[in-house]
């Protein structure tokens, strides 16, 4: 997030898109709902009639996979009506002309054709957003999980810059991170192209710094593979071993039938986890680790706040901390990775991670600090880009609408979009151990609109089979007013009826994120 969670309540207009906030970030959603209660304007742009629409002044319902079009449409109106923030554009950005040239053709009526959002709604929303004193954008995987996910995000940044809603309280472009420490995993260099704090692996100066600090030589200057690429390669037999720490790709990855084949092709699979997950069951070696309540350490939340994790209970059996297991493997292979505690590791992180350099465990004992925090007396940075952007000037990107990789046709006439429910978390390895949560959400369901259900002549609660070009699953039909005609929603949590047997593994070329939010399916009553 460019801004903080608390900042959301300061906004006059909050645009929420591609985020089912009340189910996936329930506590964050309270900030949005409270803002609405206090008379602030909430605008939801989402193909499903999610719970948050009940709190919204406006709900725009785009066809799945048409985000660039509606965002360009808003910008078209803003520029046509001269509502843009000229001072911000002139002083803090570049590339406006090129962007404006592309946006010109996205008139409200053209956008209505692509997105299905009525032209007058585009116009009204554009005015609301542009004329607000402070407007924030909150988005999540409904924006990113597309083959054009990167361009979707850039489009939102365009929109915010156009109105000068960045770099101040109550504004910002705010991705809501889904997992407790997904921000931290990225910050720590758990990515194929960067070390900690996004320092490039192919930068010779950076390599030298790490070789010196780690007392090693020969670090690879070649950016590595993203998980989705590793799996594609494994399927072709070009990838030999995987060491998986605390992840369950055999439920969470797209096109599972292919992913399973890829995993079988591996020569050696090590899985380190707290449970014998679907993925762990395929491993050659399983290493048992601590869960969060047994560990000391830090997590970095969606607002870049580094916070303490504290040991509350003793771990069971012969389990060990994740970092200790990894260090032991490393040392067995001849390395020299010895630490007494997680705190020692954090001290090493500080030395190599400029944005964390000023953060110590003592400083975050009672209250977390937002990175970047370069020095020990720096208060942290709750709001990014207040004076300038990371690259200096904010760059407008000229982006055209691109349709999803797979659209409905005669054989597969419905769009499938996947997501989550409030009572479960990711692949359910934790939440499905709770009887209460299981009682509230016992099994997979296929959410369909009343019209589509009538057309198919299937009743609520009946078992259906859902097919895509890649696989099939069987689950209960759930008729819901949340659903749009022509679009089916299935939560991906449930291994028994894994929605990811159906999904498309086509990737965004930059972020390598799969297109979970759109693929073509067909549906019929189970035999």
């Amino acid at each position, binding site marked *: 997030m460019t801004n903080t969670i608390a900042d959301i309540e300061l906004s006059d207009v909050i645009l929420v898109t591609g985020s089912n906030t*009340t189910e*996936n970030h*329930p506590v964050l959603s309270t900030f949005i709902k409270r803002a609405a*209660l206090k008379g602030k304007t909430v605008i939801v742009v989402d193909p499903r009639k999610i719970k948050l629409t009940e709190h919204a002044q406006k709900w725009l319902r785009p066809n799945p996979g048409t985000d660039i079009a509606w965002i360009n449409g808003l910008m078209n109106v803003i520029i046509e009506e001269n509502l843009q923030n000229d001072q911000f554009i002139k002083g803090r950005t570049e590339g406006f002309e090129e962007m404006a040239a592309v946006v010109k053709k996205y008139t409200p009526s053209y956008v209505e054709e692509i997105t299905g959002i009525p032209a007058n709604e585009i116009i009204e929303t554009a005015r609301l957003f542009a004329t607000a004193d402070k407007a924030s954008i909150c988005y999540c995987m409904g924006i990113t999980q597309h083959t054009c996910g990167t361009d979707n995000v850039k489009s939102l940044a365009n929109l915010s810059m156009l109105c000068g809603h960045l770099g101040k309280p109550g504004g910002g472009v705010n991705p809501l991170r*889904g*997992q*407790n420490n997904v*921000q931290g995993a990225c910050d720590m260099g*758990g990515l194929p192209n960067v*070390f900690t704090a996004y320092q490039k692996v192919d930068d010779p100066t950076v390599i030298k710094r*790490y070789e010196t600090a780690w007392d*090693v030589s020969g*670090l690879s200057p070649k950016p*590595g*593979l993203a*998980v*989705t690429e590793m799996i594609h390669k494994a399927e072709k037999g070009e990838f*030999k*071993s995987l*060491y998986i720490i*605390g*992840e369950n*790709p055999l439920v969470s990855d797209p096109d599972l039938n292919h992913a399973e084949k890829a995993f079988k092709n591996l020569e*050696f699979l090590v899985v380190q*986890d*707290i*449970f014998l997950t679907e993925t*762990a069951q395929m491993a*050659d*070696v*399983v*290493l*048992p680790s601590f869960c*969060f*309540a047994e560990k000391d350490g830090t997590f970095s*939340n*969606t607002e870049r706040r*580094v916070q303490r*994790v504290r040991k509350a*209970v003793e771990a*069971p*059996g012969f*389990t060990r901390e*994740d*970092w200790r297991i990894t260090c032991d493997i*490393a040392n*067995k*292979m001849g*390395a020299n*990775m010895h630490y007494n505690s*997680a705190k020692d*590791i954090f001290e090493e*992180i500080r030395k190599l991670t400029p944005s964390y350099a000023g953060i110590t465990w003592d400083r975050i004992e009672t*209250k977390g600090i937002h990175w970047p925090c370069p020095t020990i007396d720096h208060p942290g940075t709750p709001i990014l880009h207040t004076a300038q952007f990371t690259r200096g000037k904010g760059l407008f990107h000229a982006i055209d609408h691109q349709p999803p990789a797979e659209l409905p046709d005669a054989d597969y006439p419905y769009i499938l979009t996947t997501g989550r429910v*409030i009572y*479960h978390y990711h692949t359910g*390895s934790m939440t499905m151990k*709770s009887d*209460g*949560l299981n009682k509230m959400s016992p099994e997979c369901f296929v959410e369909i609109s009343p019209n589509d259900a009538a057309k198919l002549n299937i009743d609520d609660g009946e078992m259906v089979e859902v097919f895509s070009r890649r696989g099939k699953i069987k689950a209960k039909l759930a008729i819901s007013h949340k659903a749009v005609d022509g679009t089916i929603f299935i939560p991906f949590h449930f291994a028994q009826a894994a929605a990811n047997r159906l999904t498309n593994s086509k990737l965004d070329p930059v972020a390598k994120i799969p297109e979970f939010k759109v693929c073509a399916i067909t549906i019929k009553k189970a035999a």
Partner: protein
Amino acid sequence: MTKENIITIDNKEFAFEPGETILEVARRNDIFIPTLCHLKGTTPTGACRICVVDVKGARDLVPSCAYPASNGMIVKSESPAVIKARKNIIQLMLASGNHNCAIRQFEPDEWTQFHLKVLKEDNYNELCPVWGDCQLQDLAYRYQVITKALPVSDSKYPMETVNPFIIRDFSRCILCGRCVQACREIQVNNAIDFGYRGAKAKIVAGADVALKDSDCVFCGECVQVCPVGALVPKETFENKKRFEKSKKVRTTCSYCGVGCQMDLTVQDNKIVEINGAEDAEPNHGSLCVKGRYGYNFVASPERLTTPLIKKDGKFQEATWGQAFELVASKFMEIKSKYGADSMGVLTSARVTNEDNYIAQKFTRSVLKTNNIDHCARL
């Protein structure tokens, strides 16, 4: 601060900001004023009147939670009239329902004896599940309220136990309305409200249905703010938990990326309850159903407890020594046979920064490849 904004509480002068209530000024200056219905961040309702204070010149005692401070105002926080009023309110509350926390039956000097007896026997059937952790009980003790002479009221409504998380015991509800404020103004789930009138008043979900059939999403905010034993986590109730034997540990929630701060109540090496940390950003006490009630996985019997090595398609328990030997030798073999770039590591958005840092250090400096990633995209 201008000279205009001065209020006198208990003979001491305090500056205040225009718009601050008497209660806020008092709290800021460590002056005790009890509250039951007051909930920070929500509209004051003045429903319970336990916070009344004596304001010089006012006709009646005034509820300090809803009464703005004004210049020259002279306040007594615990005058004889205030104490009398509070005793009266507490007495009526205790008499209104099933508050068998010992104050009812005993004179003050007998109370300690009963306290010790209950601790020894720890019997829930006799006692309220929040005994020892109840704001009404604390106040009854502070003001030494005896309700021996008052009749015991039967509950007008049966206990609701049909959802997996929350026990609603209407016999202990004092109708302070904090739960309603929490649901409507903090979580904004609008699941519960006041229903019926007068003596039949009740906190209802929807059109007086069970919570599970209402808009409730079991965030548990109402349970956390309930000052008495009307709303209790089902597990606490069933496990007969006593706070005396437990410790609290502040940590960060391990579900979504919001990073809620929470206090784990731990007893006998088990998490027995989780509450949102009220004094901490970003959540100020709020949690969701997963964060508050989804902790069973920690002590699950399905946890892995020992390394496993697969032999002929079946897992066999192994020692760490055997596991490390096998993993290290296989990694080295594959690296020399196919090259480092045929190997990869998936680190995790679930583990700590320290765990992640070590995973990438291992991948880059030991395996010597940049094939490291995690499920940020999934």
